[in-house]
């Protein structure tokens, strides 16, 4: 594999980026946010979203960044992949994140947002009939993830548990 020539594409918070072989997608410091990779392994094309909130309908303003929400970001991710040559039936997903960084005893619903993000992501993927082949979700640690379309492995790094490929 020509990893030396591969480019690292960084995905920010509430962001969405695409990569073709041999490039690698990375997003850093996922807490309650969820990183979603959707790819077509044969067409060698992948997209990564860094989702911050579950539902755009909860927003009090309409003109906000659509990449922030699971229900608006993922459809854009899927449509763009198909437009760029991915086949809908071949799409697979891997997800990571949705941690609860602080354990407040408060009843504030915002603090369970990690869990709600994961559920929202799964709902959208289910609607599009995209199988989730691997996931590393919940817990209380931040995660940095990296996805290589050549290996289709999602590398997950945490501060306390090191790295693993899923």
């Amino acid at each position, binding site marked *: 594999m020509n990893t030396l020539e591969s480019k690292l594409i960084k995905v920010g918070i509430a962001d969405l980026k695409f990569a073709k072989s041999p490039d690698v997608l990375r997003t850093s410091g996922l807490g309650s946010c969820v990183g979603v990779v959707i790819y077509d392994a044969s067409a060698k094309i992948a997209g990564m979203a860094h989702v911050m909130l579950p539902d755009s309908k909860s927003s009090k303003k309409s003109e906000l960044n659509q990449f*922030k929400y699971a229900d608006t970001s993922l459809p854009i991710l899927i449509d763009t992949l198909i437009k760029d040559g991915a086949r809908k039936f071949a799409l697979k997903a891997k997800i990571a994140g949705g941690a609860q960084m602080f354990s407040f005893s408060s009843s504030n619903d915002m603090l369970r947002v990690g869990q709600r993000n994961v559920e929202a992501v799964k709902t959208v993927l289910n609607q599009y009939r995209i199988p989730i082949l691997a996931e590393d979700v919940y817990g209380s640690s931040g995660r940095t993830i990296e996805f290589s379309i050549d290996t289709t492995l999602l590398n997950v790094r945490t501060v306390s548990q090191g790295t693993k490929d899923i």
Partner: protein
Amino acid sequence: MSFIESLTDYQLDALKEVGNIGSGNAATSLSMLLNHKVDMKVPAVRIVDYNEMMELVGGPDKLIAAVFLRIEGEAPGNMFFVLSPEEAETFVKQMTGSEDFSVQEPPFDEMAMSALQEMGNILAGSYLSALSDFINVLLQPSVPLLTIDMAGAILAEGLLELSQVSDYAIIIDTIIDDHEDENKPIQGHFFLLPDPDSFPKIFNKLGIPDQ
């Protein structure tokens, strides 16, 4: 345009003054805790997008020690006290006199974590009580929670309320200057992130007209 992007310079200056009042009081508390003089200054009130906020502390991947607390009361919001693990160690050494611990990689020392949490508690308490007196608004800190993890993962938690109404955050930043050791100046950050609905209340109390 969201509320945050339409703030006037006059309003931003007022927020900076709010930060100065709080941090002045917190500096006094910290000086007493460490038994030497510590300065704090509010260099700027910044309006940043989320990714820029992570860059302020060294990027989303950077390991930070952060005390997070929720401000409850009439003008709710979130507050962070952020140190690099190295700076956190220096602080704990000064506070406890102990050299035998690590907060740079897990497992983190329990005594050191407890000392840092208590420091966060004292600093946030004195910051908020000064603020509370100044703007005449009841503000109460929740129990502070300490976490050492990636900056992105921690700071994003404080942006959740805000992110429903804006893609930007107003950060009332405070830099701590510790002159004890000239070779290793400590540069801590205090981030005050009022909830969107709190700004009109703060401005109203300060006698500044809403736009």
